[in-house]
């Protein structure tokens, strides 16, 4: 089995990351009853004998001694990382895996990217190399960050270039939180567009997520729970409502939202972490879902919703789970895949689901979905036998679909509104290395991407024809 390293950058990235590690530990604990350090665990955790000083403490097999996350935590403010290090997860992180500063990036991509990028380049390289050395077979870097701020957006994307240069063979998966329309950071469009250019050029795969969609999903879950109609009961150890005994008490709505993203990562990696009859390694996601290097943005949905809420809802028909995966209400960004064009689609199923169920549902849903002409059977599936904790099954759908286009177009509009007036531009331009051309290039990059999606959409209603084959002289 291969290993992956999570790099969590900025306030948002670290909060989500923390959520992920909490859930991952819970999941492994539920499955790994004997406390043996196995391959499943090694994909995201090291086993360390803490009595050994220095680096020699890694244990490759046998009983679990002390689990350390394969993670690098980066933040230019101390608040979030300190909170993590004082919390229940403090022993999961190696103190050498952190990079922090005090002043923060001031919601300025340029500060994150140019100032902190150059200041911390050596340290970043060193931590990444160390984390890679601890892996037998490193397959993937996961970067978690937000697009609208300064550190996650700027420093997070700076990292991408470093990773590409230093570890060209290792996949770069990025989970990016995009700002909603009513974002409280005024300069978020600038930060996002500048970051998008980096994502376009240096990421292998991006999972865009927006806060509004997460919020809507949380509202739906609350509605389900409170309606009482479905006879729901809240599980004692729920992350949605506050309760003792869990790692994070619910303080802000962000907790529940972060939980969703953490679940996304958990399910995305489940097939690589556990056994299954139809495993899917992470490199297979990129291989099958990215037909053209530019078009690597995947819209995700997680169903059933109640697996995100730790509530005991009597499971509805399995088929409903599949139907919901394609509904616009269940996507993690504002998107409607059903009414746009699919380039490819992956279904990652967990738990007690038979291959025949998969087949039946794909056949059932196919007629209502539009796939690009050369990929009419563009489905990739995986089956992981281990369900999420406390549930019997779950589904993660990843769609390479032109329905991402509106998100990008809106982002561009918001950017243009600010940029036309040159609002707040001086904060950026005063940073060394920043010029107006950075902005215009970033906008062109995004426009080019939108244009690619436009071209694909144009083929939507065209009839599917077989292209003329090579003819052989007999």
């Amino acid at each position, binding site marked *: 089995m291969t290993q992956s390293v999570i790099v969590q950058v900025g306030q948002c990235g670290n909060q989500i990351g923390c959520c992920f590690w909490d859930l991952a530990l819970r999941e492994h604990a539920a499955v790994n009853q004997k406390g043996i350090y196995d391959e499943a665990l090694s994909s995201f955790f090291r086993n360390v004998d803490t009595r050994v000083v220095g680096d020699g403490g890694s244990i490759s097999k046998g009983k679990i001694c002390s689990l350390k996350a394969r993670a690098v935590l980066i933040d230019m403010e101390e608040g979030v990382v300190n909170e993590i290090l004082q919390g229940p997860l403090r022993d999961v992180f190696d103190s050498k895996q952190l990079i922090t500063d005090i002043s923060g990036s001031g919601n300025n991509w340029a500060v994150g990217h140019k100032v902190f990028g150059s200041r911390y380049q050596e340290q970043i390289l060193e931590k990444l190399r160390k984390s890679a050395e601890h892996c037998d077979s490193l397959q993937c870097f996961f970067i978690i960050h937000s697009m609208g701020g300064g550190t996650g957006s700027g420093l997070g994307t700076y990292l991408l270039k470093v990773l590409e240069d230093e570890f060209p063979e290792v996949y770069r998966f990025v989970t990016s939180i995009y700002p909603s329309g009513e974002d409280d950071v005024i300069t978020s469009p600038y930060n996002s567009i500048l970051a998008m250019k980096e994502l376009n050029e240096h990421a292998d795969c991006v999972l865009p997520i927006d806060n509004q969609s997460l919020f809507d999903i949380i509202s739906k879950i609350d509605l389900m729970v409170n309606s009482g109609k479905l006879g729901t009961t809240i599980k004692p150890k729920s992350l949605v409502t506050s309760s003792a005994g869990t790692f994070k008490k619910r303080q802000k709505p962000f907790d529940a939202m972060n939980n969703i993203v953490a679940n996304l990562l958990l399910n995305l990696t489940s097939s690589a972490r556990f056994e299954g009859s139809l495993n899917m390694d992470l490199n297979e996601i990129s291989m099958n879902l*990215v037909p*053209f290097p530019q078009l690597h943005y995947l819209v995700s949905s997680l169903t059933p919703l109640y697996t995100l809420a730790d509530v005991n809802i009597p499971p509805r028909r399995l088929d409903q789970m599949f139907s919901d995966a394609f509904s616009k209400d269940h996507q993690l960004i504002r998107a409607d895949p059903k009414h746009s064009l699919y380039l490819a689609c992956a279904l990652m199923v967990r738990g007690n689901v038979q291959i*025949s169920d998969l087949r039946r549902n*794909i*056949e059932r849903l196919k007629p209502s979905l539009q796939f690009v002409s050369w990929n009419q059977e563009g*489905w*990739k599936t995986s089956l992981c036998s281990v369900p999420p904790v406390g549930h019997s099954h779950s589904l993660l759908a990843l769609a390479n679909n032109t329905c991402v286009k509106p998100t990008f177009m809106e982002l561009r509009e918001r950017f243009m509104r600010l940029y036309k007036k040159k609002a707040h531009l001086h904060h950026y331009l005063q940073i060394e290395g920043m010029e107006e051309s950075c902005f215009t290039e970033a906008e062109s990059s995004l426009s080019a991407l939108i244009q690619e999606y436009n071209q694909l959409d144009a083929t939507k209603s065209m009839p599917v024809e*077989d292209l003329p*084959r090579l003819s*052989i002289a007999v």
Partner: protein
Amino acid sequence: MEIWPAFMLLSKTRFRKQLGIWIIVQNYNSILTLSHLYRSSDALLVHENDAVHKICAKLMNIKQISFSDINQVLAHQLGSVFQPTYSAEGSFHYRRNPLGDLMENLVPHPEFKMLGVRNIPQMSENSLAYSTFTWAGLLKHLRQMLISNAKMEEGIDWQVRPPVSRLPTLGKMSLNKELHFNTSIANLLILRGKDVHSADLGGFKDPALYTSWLEPVNAFNVWKTQRSFNKYEKSAALVTNSQFLVKPLDKIVGKAWNMFASKAYVHQYTKFGIEEEDFLDSFTLLEQVVASYCNL
């Protein structure tokens, strides 16, 4: 002579749906693999996954088919071919070089090296207890399976007959025309079990089954042993070099071509050193193979 029989699993569209395995780039992988193997191997023994799947479902009566079931059927097919047989009629020495003999019997021309296996009977152990077999019955079915290109013993099209006269085909036979009759270049029959010497093989020696290049005495061979195989009192395996793979192969090439013409996923391959030229070479080779077999 180096012999590298390559055992390959060809996944067809229908099989993918049935077993729930989807790999989007599998058509690319298939054409790249197949073309490379074609160049470097002496012969290819090809199994079609959907045929194996159907055998499990219909003949073996398995409800939820697992990979282990599929592999059992495949192992049976291979075993039925490669288990020892006597080297000659009336001899008690076992064949020393089955691979070499296989090549000699079945691959007269390096352009035509695709071999398939058909087995009879195939059934679940429960059904076995209530069945008896005669060589005449088994061979009659197996012959019809060959000429109608049936993948298994059920659903055989008995309407298909060899053409009345075996004139060389004029011009290219287009694939649009239904290839009902499966023309063979060479066939090898392997009989295992009781009274194997009493089996009448006349049906397989009919010149109408074959191209005009070889006399049936050279195009058709038989291996025998009295040892039964895998619980079947009598069993027959047919290793055939014929047109059996033309349609499935053509379909895969067609799908891969559509994808390639749009340049989809090509960057995933070029980043590891496979260039567009390599793709084109593969397509060319396989179109040639399809055309050659089509024109038998």
